[in-house]
């Protein structure tokens, strides 16, 4: 038995060491090296390659945002910080760097109303889990209530509470998904972007959007996006000049 434990520990240690050495050779590590040596363009290429291969993580997008920031592309820096926060809403480094990038770019933010701000205490995924648990607890409670000879008041209260929690969680998911920071959130990545009243370059301007500004895509028509803009405005912008946060 003792020999078996020693063998297992040895195998585990070897695996850990090998994985450490293996990570040093990964594209991510190489991109980090490029970043550390000031080759931000090459670092961006390395991170973007990983992103294109769908190896998504908050760390990857955070580092990519840093590389864009160093390269002076504040719009894409903000976009990638937002992506990191979309994957991991409690990412402190991404949150801090996002603020700095916004200040540098003078980016405009979409206003978040009070209900949406309150609902952001939990993420949509957390609301989903809460809704699932509450639903099943409620259903089990109802089944037990139906089959029991004597109906407990506590069980009735628990069932009702569970179903109320389920309804609230579903409403929160819908609200957050359709809110200004929901699935339609996009970031202006180009410079000199102006939202217009119609789908024409010579149409009147609604709002000048610095890179990194937030917009909420309402609909798409050809090469144009109709979007909710900061300050409760709406307008058309070129589809090439903005990217969705959620891939």
């Amino acid at each position, binding site marked *: 038995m003792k020999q078996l434990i020693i063998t297992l520990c040895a195998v585990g240690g070897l695996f850990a060491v090998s994985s450490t050495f293996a990570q040093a050779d990964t594209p991510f590590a190489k991109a980090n090296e490029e970043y550390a040596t000031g080759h931000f363009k090459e670092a961006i290429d390395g991170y973007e390659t990983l992103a294109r291969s769908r190896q998504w*993580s908050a*760390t990857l997008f955070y580092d990519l945002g840093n590389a864009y920031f160093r390269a002076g592309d504040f719009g894409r820096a903000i976009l990638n910080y937002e992506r990191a926060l979309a*994957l991991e809403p409690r990412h402190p480094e991404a949150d801090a760097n996002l603020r*700095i990038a916004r200040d540098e770019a*003078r980016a*405009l933010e979409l206003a978040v109303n009070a209900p949406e701000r309150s609902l952001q205490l939990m993420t*949509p995924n957390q609301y989903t889990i809460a809704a699932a648990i509450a639903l099943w607890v409620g259903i089990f409670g109802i089944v037990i209530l139906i089959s029991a000879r004597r109906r407990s008041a506590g069980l009735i209260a628990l069932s009702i509470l569970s179903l109320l929690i389920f309804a609230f969680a579903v409403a929160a998911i819908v609200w957050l998904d359709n809110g200004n920071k929901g699935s339609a959130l996009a970031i202006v990545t180009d410079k000199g972007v102006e939202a217009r009243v119609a789908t024409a370059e010579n149409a009147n301007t609604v709002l*000048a959007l610095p890179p990194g500004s937030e917009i909420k895509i309402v609909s798409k028509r050809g090469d144009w996006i109709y979007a909710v803009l900061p300050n*409760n405005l709406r307008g058309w912008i070129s589809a090439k000049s903005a990217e969705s946060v959620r891939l």
Partner: protein
Amino acid sequence: MFDVRRTALCTILVAALTGFFSSGAVFADSPSVTAVLSNSEVAVGETVRLQIRITGSDAKPPGQITVDGLDIRQTGTEQHYEMNNFSISQSVIYNYTVLPMKAGKFKIPPQTVQAGGASLRTPELALNVSGSAGSSARGNSSTAQQSIDPRKIAFIELVVPKAQAYVGEAVPVVLKLCLNPRVRFQAIDQLDINAQGLTVQKLTKSGESMEAINGATYNVITFKTAMAAARTGKFEIPAMEVKAVALFPDRQPSTRNPRGPRSPFDIFNMDPFDDSLFGDLIGKPHDITIRSEPVTLEVKPLPSNAPANFSGAVGNFTMTAEANPKSVQVGDPITVTATISGRGSFDRVNAPSIEDDRGWHKYPPSSKFKQDDDVGISGAKTFETVLSPNEKKQTVPPLAFSYFDPVKEQYVTLRSEPVPIQVEGNALPAATLSAATANPQPAPEASARPASKPQDILYQLTELPVRSRSFTPLYARSVFWMAQLIPLLALLGTAGWKIRQARIDNREAQRIAALQQEATELMRKLRRKDTSPQEYFSQASRAVQVKTALARNVDPNVVDVEVAAKTFGLDEGERAQLRRLFARSDEMRYSGAQNGAGTTTPQDRHELLEFIESLRA
């Protein structure tokens, strides 16, 4: 007899009605005559219509109407019949055209007509004829060149409301293309105003109407535009010349007998009903040139004391401003909407300036113009400027807009009221402030502030998580719904178990109920006195077994003396009594009815019944 009288009455009635209607025409309105001129004020060469209306039967036209200086010719006759209250009236209208040959005041004398056997007289009519350009044309009608005056076919009027204007001032211009309605135009070239040194907007057609100009009726097509001068000086808008193709006969009056019979439709010495004209229906195409008169505009310079924010707007304007939202955090955008409305050169109206933009970050404004007229010199131009406060502010700073008022001949500066707002949060860092403030004259405290190092981003992370993440919401992933199978299966299992349990409970209840019923039945039989000893002891032992089975929830057939005694906690005496009961029952069952049949007395039965009833768990 009765039928004869009735037939005679009907005949009289029909005859009376026939007589009434036949006399209706006879007794219609009495004969009358009226005479009217379509216009009592005309110019030489212009025609007037004269109508003589005679009401009554057997009307006869007046004779030739002759007035010196007027050429009066009959053009047609109209007959009218009217029925009113069973009365039929008949009238005849004799139409004439009157062509004045010279200026002056003419009187068409009363004409005698015959109607209804009576002699009637028309009233005397007066006609004032003024001299005009047409008279010269008429007077020189013998010359072919002047017989068809292009100016009478079509001409252009260029209406410039003012002779003096300022540099940059938008002057409205109205252009009237006057076409003779009796001439058909095949093609008219594009109208265009070419004036050197003046910026002229595109001509916009604003309407079409019939107007009387110099005594003649024209189809007037009105165009509008506006012009502005970029420099001072005296500008002449040259006479416009537009080529057109008009259809009219090229037969000259000189070929006709000037004193011969003339058609009343002969205008400009052209008679569309002339045989030669009917040859090509409405005439032959002629290239003509439609001209206007030149117009002069003197452009004055603007005064030299222009305000700093003057962008060249000349006119008369008003300004309103508002800001939204009113409550923001530091750094949040506020849209300031300024609307400049009025009349003037809107192309030179720029966004109003912010008088004090310290502590604000200003983004480029957007603008839209909504014009109220056809040429864009009246309307409202709206500017939206996004401002972002870098520190706590109480109001949005006033906006200022300057223009030159050509009526007052001075510069006017409009200032908006400061819009109260509420800005919360801490001031932005100095680094962003320095980028945000674009005030050319920074405040002393702002200039004294040391330039701090721009904020730097945090470090790079080097540890990638083992598993990659997805942007797909949890509820949209298949694994989430697969996971829901676990509680679903548990729910189904629980439900199935509960249903099975309910069924089992149901069977047990039925068994207990049957035993209780059996126990009751046995006790009832034991109380009867006519049962045989064999049945009595058998039922008594069975009753004990059933009561024990009910108490212990077991099968009554497996109950023996010991189980029953233990169940009911019997003492030795009761145990012996119970043992005897079961022994007697077995004896009775297996040894036959004759053995000991008479050994049970009513006293024994009573005691045994009491004993069984006393058994309680």
